[in-house]
């Protein structure tokens, strides 16, 4: 076993034990109400962090042409209730941001 190679790829390497299992799932959420000046990966990470961990955005922030909504893929350990409202404060205003579960429709 070449530890150096393994360490290049993994943060942690340990012996297998019976407690190892996948505890999360992936889900798309759609976020409405984020203003253009708050349209950033950091802010979407912040919103996603309420339910899980951001995996990726449907459209990269710099490619945005519409600020109606953003679809985010999250990794979550929650089965229910991945939706709700968040008040996002930026500079001097608060924005009511709505989050709902979503499907990603791949168009070609």
């Amino acid at each position, binding site marked *: 076993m070449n530890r150096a190679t393994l360490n290049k790829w993994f943060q942690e390497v340990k012996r297998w034990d019976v407690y190892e299992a996948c505890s999360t799932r992936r889900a798309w959420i759609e976020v409405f109400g*984020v203003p*253009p*000046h*708050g*349209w*950033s990966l*950091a*802010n979407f990470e*912040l*919103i996603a962090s*309420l339910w899980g961990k951001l995996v990726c955005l449907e459209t990269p*922030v*710099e490619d*945005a*042409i*519409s*600020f*109606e909504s953003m679809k985010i893929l999250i990794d979550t350990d929650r089965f229910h209730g991945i939706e*709700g*409202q*968040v*008040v*996002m*404060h*930026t*500079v001097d205003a*608060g*924005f*009511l941001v709505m989050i709902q579960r979503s499907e990603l429709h791949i168009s070609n």
Partner: protein
Amino acid sequence: MKGRSNHHGFTVFVDNIPHTLDRFGLKGIFRRAGGVCDSFIPLKQGRSRKRYGFVRFYKEDDARNNIRMFNNTMVRGFKISVWFAKYGKGSLGANVTQVFKQPGRLEVNQKGSKEWTQKISQANQEKFNHMEQRKPPIVKGGVNDDFMEWLNRSVVGESGELRDLEVLSAVLVGDECSKVFALSKTKFILTYPTLEKNGGKFGEPCYP
């Protein structure tokens, strides 16, 4: 003992019923899962002024499924709690028969009544434990500085009717305007190459 389940049914207790829902509405909601025999909402409110009621099922399985399906779910903005109205001689709703016979009045036998009162206060207690109204959480967002640059040389156009971003872009981009972004189907951000051309007309930028 001729068919207890047929005669009495199996009664579930429903707590925090929305004020806009009468006993027929209550029955309608639970009918989705099937097997509803009857429903009842006493005029009297619970100690915490929340409305409660009963739904009776023909079959125990249906009652059980409904509890599983509706307990802690939202009905017209109210989070309802559902469980077996299990009082009286340890049976599943045997003493509630009279309740359904005389709507508007709550009459159960003495022993049942006492336990019933206990059940209600227990119910209220439990309800407070998981029923606080949640306010949306607040997050502190940052500003996208890269976007601020072009936002500060942009104007917002609002249309009385729905517009298509592609159509608008095709018409507007090139004639001074450099790019069009959508805020909604009726609101659009029009970006111009320089502030001077529009700054005068539309006032100072938001964050200079």
